[in-house]
Each structure stands twice: as C-alpha cells, then as structure tokens.
C-alpha cells in the first residue's frame, strides 16, 4: 500500500486546503495525473501523482486543511491485490444519507464519495453537504494577506539563513535583439518570441558548466539538480509574486519555451498551478522587463542557492572599438548562496550567460 502524501508546494507553503478530489476509490492513477486540487496562500494547486497505482481510500475530506507531508490517500501499487483488511472504500450508494442531503448535493455539485457524515452512524446530513459546498467555493479568506505572509516567511528565512553575495554584469544585446527582430518579422503574431525566452535559455544552458548555481541546499549540504527547472518570478495583478517552475529549460527549443512560458504566466495569474511547478524550481530568474528598473538584486528562494536578475533592456552608452555607441543592453545580476558557490565561479557563470547571448541562433 502506498501512502500518498500531500507533496511539497514550495518553501513558503507549508499547508494546503483540499478543494476537490480528482480521484475516487477504485480509480487507476498514473504518474503525473492530477489527484486533487489544493488551495494555498498563493494559488489553487493541481496536486500531481508521483506514482502509478489504484486508489484504495481517500483519507481527508474537502475543506480539510493539512500540513505538507500528511497522507491524504492510500493507493495500491500496480499488481497489489485489494486489501480486504483495509477499511472499505467509501461509496455514496452504501452510505446513509438523508434524501434532502442527496438532493442538495446534486444541486450544489458536492461529491458524496469524498464526504464524511456527522449524522447517526456516519449518515450525511444536509448541513454536511452545505458545509462542504461552502468550503469548496469560498475564496481564501484574504488571499492578498495570506500571500504577503507566505512571502514574508520565505524571504525572512532566506535572509536569516543564506549568506548572500551579489554580482552584476551589463550584457550587450545587439546581436540577440537583431536576431529576434528578424525572426519575429517572419512569423505570425502568435509565434513571436519575447526577449525573456532568450534570457531564460541562456541561464539554463550556463548552469551546465556551473552546476553549483543550480540546485538546493538541504541538510547542511548542496545538492546539484540534474536539470534546470527555472523558477520564473511572475508578479500578480492584485499584488504579490509567485515563481513556478518552467521545466527542463536547457533541453527545449525557444518556440516551445515561449509557449510554455505564456501558459505558465497565464495560469499563475489565474491562480492555477501544478504541484511540480510549485515544488521543484532549481534556480529562480526574475526579469523586470521593459517597464522595470535598471537592475535587480534578488533574495534567494530557499532551499535554492541562487537567483538571476535581469533589469530593463535599454540603450546605454557603450565603448566599442574606441567609439561611443548606443548599445541595447541588460544588467544581469547574480545573488548567490556563499555556502554553495563563491564569487569567482559566480562571475564566470554570468560571463557564460553573456557569451551565450552573443550567439542567439545557437540558443
């Protein structure tokens, strides 16, 4: 029997409230399937299964708030026989439920299978149904305040625990922007790339040579990540910030990254992300874009060990072959965790990003 635990939802989220089950006892689940939707301070998160199996029992009810790591369901491993000793799966048919409660559940779309009853012999009452419906549909009490608290906790922990060092380099982007302009001019509007995609790809590729920038500091030691899952800092319109992962950035073509980035931003702003996106960024990138400041020195999101910041892309006076020219450029910064890397290697990492951005057609 596999205990399916509520997975990590990122360093600043230590609990979640069950909004909806996507599985029922008897269902077959594959790795990556969505098993539940859980509300956190920052978003409603689609919880993905990390195993294959068959659902034996659901252990928590809609509306329950549980800490990360709590067993929320029991699954049978593939090939494992149904355990007759285990408590029987809940079934709406076999449970006591008042006719009024059943009717109301139908009206409100409440799933009786995942409901526990408070009436005699566990019977589901009208109140149970209405309480669950309210728990499912009620918005987070004050998402803004909760998000502020979550950010405060993670950033305070970062500044308490992580000895940050900071580096910056202004990188010329003439070649990259000219390449982008030519490419975008040939394509329909729906396939245009943003400069951000080139920057993300360059960062991910640079981590291959400087693995100590990409990973996590856990239990007093650095653990390099096998791939670059870049946490993309996305500001939310109502205020606040979220940095879900864009997966395997180094391995993907720019057009794919652009589609995935657009989808990630759209879902982050709609408040619908996947648990893997919340849990596994290996290096955060913050990009202030066209309207932002010239440079940014970020606070590392623990347990990550670095953050790369891009300021606004702008023309700057630039000396080239003894002449002063106007050069489109971006100030790139690295906030590094001094426990995991040193400034010298950090500087080489930034130089690698610079180098990669001079050959955009190779990205």
């Amino acid at each position, binding site marked *: 029997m596999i205990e399916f635990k509520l997975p990590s939802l990122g360093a600043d989220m230590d609990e979640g409230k069950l909004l909806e089950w996507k599985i029922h006892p008897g269902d077959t689940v594959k790795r990556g399937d969505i098993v539940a939707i859980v509300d956190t301070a920052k978003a409603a998160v689609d919880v993905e299964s990390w195993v294959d199996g068959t659902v034996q029992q659901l252990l928590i009810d809609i509306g329950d708030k549980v800490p990360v790591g709590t067993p929320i369901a029991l699954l049978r491993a593939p090939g494992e026989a149904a355990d007759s000793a285990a408590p029987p799966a809940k079934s709406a048919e076999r449970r006591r439920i008042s006719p009024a409660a059943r009717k109301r559940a139908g009206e409100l779309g409440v799933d009786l299978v995942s409901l526990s009853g408070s009436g005699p012999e566990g019977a589901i009452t009208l109140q149970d149904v209405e309480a669950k419906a309210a728990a499912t549909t009620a918005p987070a009490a004050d998402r803004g305040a909760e998000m502020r608290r979550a950010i405060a906790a993670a950033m305070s922990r970062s500044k308490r625990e992580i000895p940050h060092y900071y580096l910056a380099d202004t990188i010329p982007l003439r070649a990259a922007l000219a390449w982008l*302009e030519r490419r975008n*001019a040939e394509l329909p*509007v*729906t396939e*245009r790339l943003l400069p951000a995609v080139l920057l993300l790809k360059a960062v991910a590729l640079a981590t291959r040579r400087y693995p100590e920038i990409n990973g996590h500091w856990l239990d007093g030691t650095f653990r390099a990540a096998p791939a670059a899952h870049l946490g993309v800092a996305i500001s939310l319109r109502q205020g606040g910030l979220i940095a879900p992962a864009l997966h395997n950035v180094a391995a993907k073509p720019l057009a794919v990254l652009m589609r995935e980035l*657009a989808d990630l931003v*759209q879902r982050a702003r709609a408040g619908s992300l996947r648990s893997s996106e919340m849990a596994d960024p290996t290096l955060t990138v913050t990009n202030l*874009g066209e*309207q932002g400041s010239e440079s940014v020195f970020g606070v590392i999101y623990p347990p990550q060990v670095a953050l790369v910041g891009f300021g606004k892309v702008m023309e700057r006076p630039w000396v080239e072959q003894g002449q002063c020219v106007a050069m489109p450029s971006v100030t790139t910064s690295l906030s590094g965790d001094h426990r995991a890397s040193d400034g010298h290697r950090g500087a080489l990492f930034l130089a690698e990003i610079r180098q990669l951005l001079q050959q955009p057609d190779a990205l």
Partner: protein
Amino acid sequence: MDRASLRTLVIDSLRKIAPEVEESALRDDRPLRDEIDLDSMDWLNFIIGLHERLQVDIPEADYRQLVSLNAVLDYLAARMHDGPPSAPPPDSEP
C-alpha cells in the same frame, strides 16, 4: 466599424489581460502602458487578442506607434481600411 465600437473592442481586449481596467478612468491620450500596467507578455497577448478579433497582424516594428489608446485606434482604423502597411491587401479585403 465606427470608432466607438472599435474603442469598446480594444478596451475589452485590454480587460482580458488587465481585468481592473475601468473604461471611464482610461485617458485616451496618455501613454497606454503607463495608464495600464502591462508587461511584455501582457502586451503580446493584447496584440494577439487584436489579431484574433480584427484579423490585423501588427508587426513588432509598429509597436512604437501604439503609444496611447488614441494611437491604437488610429492605427487599427487605418490598417482595417488599407490592409497591411507594406504588403498588397488580400483579395478578400473589403
């Protein structure tokens, strides 16, 4: 399409990206990206939205013309009337 309908359509496209936009609070002659907090992804989605609704493909090189809501309306009206700036209008152009 008259200008008022076009304005409504443009504001509707903006609101898909920035739901907080209030039509009455928007000043048509001010820099649009100061009036509404639009990052580069928002802007691209706005351009894609206009493309889907009006079948007008706005080249990147023309973004700099689209400084205010008035400028966007002028640009769209001209493009819908004349077709693409540097290409012959398609046969189906009204």
